[in-house]
């Protein structure tokens, strides 16, 4: 079980952050991600393995300015 933006979700398999974002259809180049309140650099997405109990904050930017 992990928490994504405050909502609990099952994590059925071991996933890294890059794979998780792809599976949930997040555009990787438009997001900012914190795991347990720590910002994850983009280059670490493939190596950041999600663990039971992790709290993710995913901020997805939209265009316009």
């Amino acid at each position, binding site marked *: 079980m992990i928490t994504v933006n405050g909502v609990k979700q099952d994590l059925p398999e071991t996933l890294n952050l890059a794979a998780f974002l792809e599976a949930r259809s997040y555009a990787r180049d438009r997001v900012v991600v914190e795991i347990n309140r720590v910002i994850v*650099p983009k280059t670490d997405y493939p190596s950041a393995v999600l663990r039971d109990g992790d709290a993710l904050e995913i901020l997805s930017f939209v265009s*316009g300015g």
Partner: protein
Amino acid sequence: MKVVLNGKSVDAPEARLHALRDAFYPGGGEFVTILNGFQTPDDADLNEGDEVVVIEKGKLPPREDLERMMMARHTPGVHEKVKRARVAVAGLGGLGSNIALLLARTGVGRLHLVDFDVVEPSNLNRQQYGIRHLGLPKTDAMKQAIGEINPFVEVVTDRVRVTEENVASLFADDDLICEAFDSAAAKALLVNACLTRFPQKFLVAASGLAGFESGNTIRTRRVSDRFYLCGDGETDARVGRGLMAPRVAVCAGHQANTALRILVGEYDV
């Protein structure tokens, strides 16, 4: 009793506002009188240390008095704080051009303007440029516009596209960064880079401000200690939904107000 009149400490002959005005500006004329940031035609009691600005209507003041007069409607104490600040505006489109002018009027000491683009006709529906700016780099056009509004702001410009490679050196000297890009990817790039490399700097970003939906859905959220996000979070610019001056300005106002609050030490939203 000592009060501050047009920036200089003076002895007030008696503890009344109009007596002070008449003592230093005899000869009549039409005056605007501002006591501690509040413009009033009425007489009032004066207290030690009060800040009074007296402006003769229709007369261009000497340059050394101009800045004090321009800031006379500020809440007392604000000008001194914002004057010391170094703020970057990253992107000079609908958000950034509004933010830059709002912060220039607020008297922020140094504004660092970053944009790679030139002013085009399609910008004028929401961006703070005019016909005379068409074809100019936005950095040059905005520097000119700021100079006409508040020539006491130091304006530093960089006409570049922000990349992973240049972001660290580009914003090294700024205390607070306003993210004001149009593209979602550019927003994410800057926010990721700032949060990773500049944990000590304040960041005020925006997402979700297109169209003409209710202005009340645009809000400011404190995402983490030094990272604030303005907007509704979801209303994107897309085929069939444009960017309109009022709602863009609502969001830019949120960003500029958040920046001002941070600069005066108010960190809650």
